[in-house]
């Protein structure tokens, strides 16, 4: 049952092939903003920012994952995500993500001299992405 709107999506991590199959639309966040990808997209390579990854497989089914880092290569009829860190929504430890979020927020609020602000903000973004994905 080949849907003509579908294109091949492959998500690879250093440890495993995370996902391989057809998708109608993929939504994710890049360093430049959120993008949605359909078939026949212009060739594009972009760098991932922590956020939600939504894979619409058919009109009914949508899979959700937290995509933390990596980069994406989009070609006309295929898309490859080289992900350093990516987790399905049901794999995420929500309690741990909440904890991480609180910790990061506290660090940012306190603004101690030795706090690495960039790092704290990254940590905050990561935990927010995880929480969002887990709640979907």
């Amino acid at each position, binding site marked *: 049952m080949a849907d003509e709107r579908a294109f091949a999506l492959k998500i*690879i*991590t*250093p*440890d*495993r*092939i995370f996902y391989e199959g057809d998708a109608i639309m993929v939504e994710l966040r*890049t*360093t*430049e903003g959120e993008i949605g990808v359909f078939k026949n997209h*212009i*060739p*594009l*390579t*972009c*760098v991932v920012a922590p956020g939600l990854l939504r894979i619409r497989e058919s009109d009914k089914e949508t899979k959700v994952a937290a995509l933390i*880092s*990596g*980069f994406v*290569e989009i*070609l*006309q009829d295929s898309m*490859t995500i*080289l992900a*350093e860190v990516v987790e399905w929504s049901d794999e995420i430890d929500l309690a741990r993500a909440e904890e991480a979020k609180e910790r990061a927020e506290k660090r940012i609020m306190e603004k101690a001299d030795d706090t690495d602000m960039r790092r704290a903000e990254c940590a905050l973004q990561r935990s927010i992405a995880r929480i969002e994905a887990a709640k979907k």
Partner: protein
Amino acid sequence: MASMRDIKRRKTSIQSTQQITKAMKLVSTVKLQRAKTRAERSKAYFNCMYETIKSIIRRTGQLDHPYLVRGGSDKKAVVVITSNRGLAGGYNSNIVKLVTGSEWKTGDILVYSVGKKGRDALKRHGYTVKSDFSEVINEPLYADAKEIADALLADYSAGEIGEIWLAYTGFKNTVSHIPTLIKLLPVDEEITKSADDEAGSGDVKDTDEADFRAKMNYEPEESEALELIIPKYIASIIYGALIEAVASENGARMQAMDSATSNAEEMISSLELQYNRARQGHITQELTEIIGGAEALSS
């Protein structure tokens, strides 16, 4: 000739050694299988990563990016991946030889070691060990590789080191492991050259793909993307090297233990022969003595 008791004692001792080597062989066989599947699973990632880097560099040509031109320092950082434990045949010493046998001056090298054996050997040879990540090799994770890569890149950006090399044992198959020394940074000639080669030659399919990739757009633009992607690239190469090294280590240990076991087998059988001979000699001697004694009595 050694006495019967000596031979027996030696035989038992070799037998217990053989039991140990046999067990070690079994353990490393299992570990090898696991490491091998891991290495195979992660291959897709690196191939893809390599292709992407290559196409970016091919498109951008000669950039004046710090990751692409040689750093200011003469120092070379060498990431040396060995094992924490011995009894793996020539596995560790081959890597050490690779570093000591190179034309580099000892003083120009800063060692970033993964694995105690390589670290200690290089220290004895007078090399400076800058940092040590030995605990990583027990169970390499991508996060560990990233940590090593970050440390390297920080020193590289700070101008402490001008080049980054990687010495590890490549895993070709179960019996052949190749000590490899590759350059990580600056990513200049090799990738660009192989990219040129491919663009030059290549059949229809290649050029098709090249066309396709030539139309690639980058967001953020190439040089910025490169800045973000190269650290990932370095981390992934280090991760791949760690995984291959673990597979090679277990492969090397399996081989070493296999030959140790069969050597022990050989020694045991020759000792058994000696033992039997000694026993026979003992009996013959006793018999002669009895007969001699009886004759002396009867005469």
